């Protein structure tokens, strides 16, 4: 009799879908994906027709710095086109201190901005950090001249952006 009474209510109960485990999974997935976004962000924006070389480097870009992108047609500073790459290439090879005046001027104004921010107390010091994105089919000559221009202005702390090699 006691057994019978115990079983009867069970039969009447409507069994719902067991979604607890699926909920767990979804929660973990969402948290993971959100975290990935928070950690990465889109610090580097990839310019069009710019293929970065593959590398085994695991170091992640941490903060927003000045960006220089070198594509086959244009040199861009913070995603604004500044000077055609051809102009950079045409600087004579025997020039001991190659630099492009237009690019130099643009970089100087960015550097002055940073100095201004230090004066106002928004930054601790002028870091002179710059991230250079160069197309992997670019020749060394152009790279060297751009690096030299950066160094001249005071951007000594350079980083190359690369694609992480999968494997």
């Amino acid at each position, binding site marked *: 009799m006691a057994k019978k009474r115990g079983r009867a209510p069970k039969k009447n109960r409507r069994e719902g879908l067991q979604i607890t485990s699926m909920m767990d999974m979804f929660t973990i997935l*969402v948290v993971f994906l959100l975290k990935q976004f928070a950690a990465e962000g889109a610090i580097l924006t990839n310019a069009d027709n710019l293929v970065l070389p593959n590398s085994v480097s695991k170091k992640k870009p941490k903060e927003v710095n000045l960006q220089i992108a070198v594509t086959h047609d244009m040199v861009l500073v913070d995603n604004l086109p500044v000077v055609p790459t051809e102009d950079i290439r045409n600087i004579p090879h025997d020039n001991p201190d190659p630099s492009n005046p237009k690019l130099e001027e643009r970089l100087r104004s960015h550097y002055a901005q940073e100095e201004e921010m230090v004066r106002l107390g928004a930054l601790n010091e002028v870091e002179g950090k710059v991230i250079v994105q160069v197309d992997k089919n670019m020749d060394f000559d152009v790279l060297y001249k751009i690096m030299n221009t950066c160094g001249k202005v005071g951007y*000594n702390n350079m980083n190359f952006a690369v694609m992480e090699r999968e494997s």
Partner: protein
Amino acid sequence: MALKNFKKATATVKDLDLTPFMCLMVVLVPILLLQAEFAQIAIIDINLPEGRGSQTKQTVKQRPKEEENKLLLTAIITDSVLTLGAKGGFLPSLFYQEFHKYITKDDGKELTVKYDPKNPEPPKHPVTGRPLEIYERYDIYLYSCDQDYEEINKCLYTKYGEMLTDVDGVPVQKVEPGDTVYALSNPRRMSVVRDPSEFQLQPMSVYDELKNRLMKVKERFKDADDAENIIIAAENEVLYDKIVQIMDAARQAEFPNISIAKLRG
């Protein structure tokens, strides 16, 4: 009686109603998955070109006057040779031939062709016959060859793509069961050959041999003042991709302070 009824009513509400939350999840997960970037961008630290652009105090500070116990390790790359040099002299040059791997945009076919620097024409598409674009070039392989650029040197690789060397760090072409070999990772991984067919004979990559040599240099000159520095000197025409690959080899051999210099032609 009223209490009994109330109890009955609350007993049926057992679980939270998770349906709205589920709906949210079902929307959020695909959105986030779609937006997630799976190609990750990383960065490489480098120093400024040697001898140029050092007007600021920061760079001057990094280069002290005395250079007694300095190694001045330099990797020199031109369009056909890769050489490793230091203050004491140069190691034998590594002559290389270039092979370009293309992946076609329209049908995703892989194609590896030998590149001739004297005749730099892009290869033709295997089916349609159109010349391939530079953006379709996926990878550049540099294979070590002899002095006359005729025969490509080969050596054994593990299934993970690591070069095999013997005790002295010389690449091996042939192994017998029972031999002791070292796989080129950092630090080198020793193993005893059980089955020679585990390893494949492949063209020797110049980058692997460079890494091998750099690791030897690192072992021998641990206590030099600049045991972490390397200068990469390149000719004008060298592609950026090759420089990044050399940087990778340098970093894997524990030379993290990379400087870049230019060879005067």
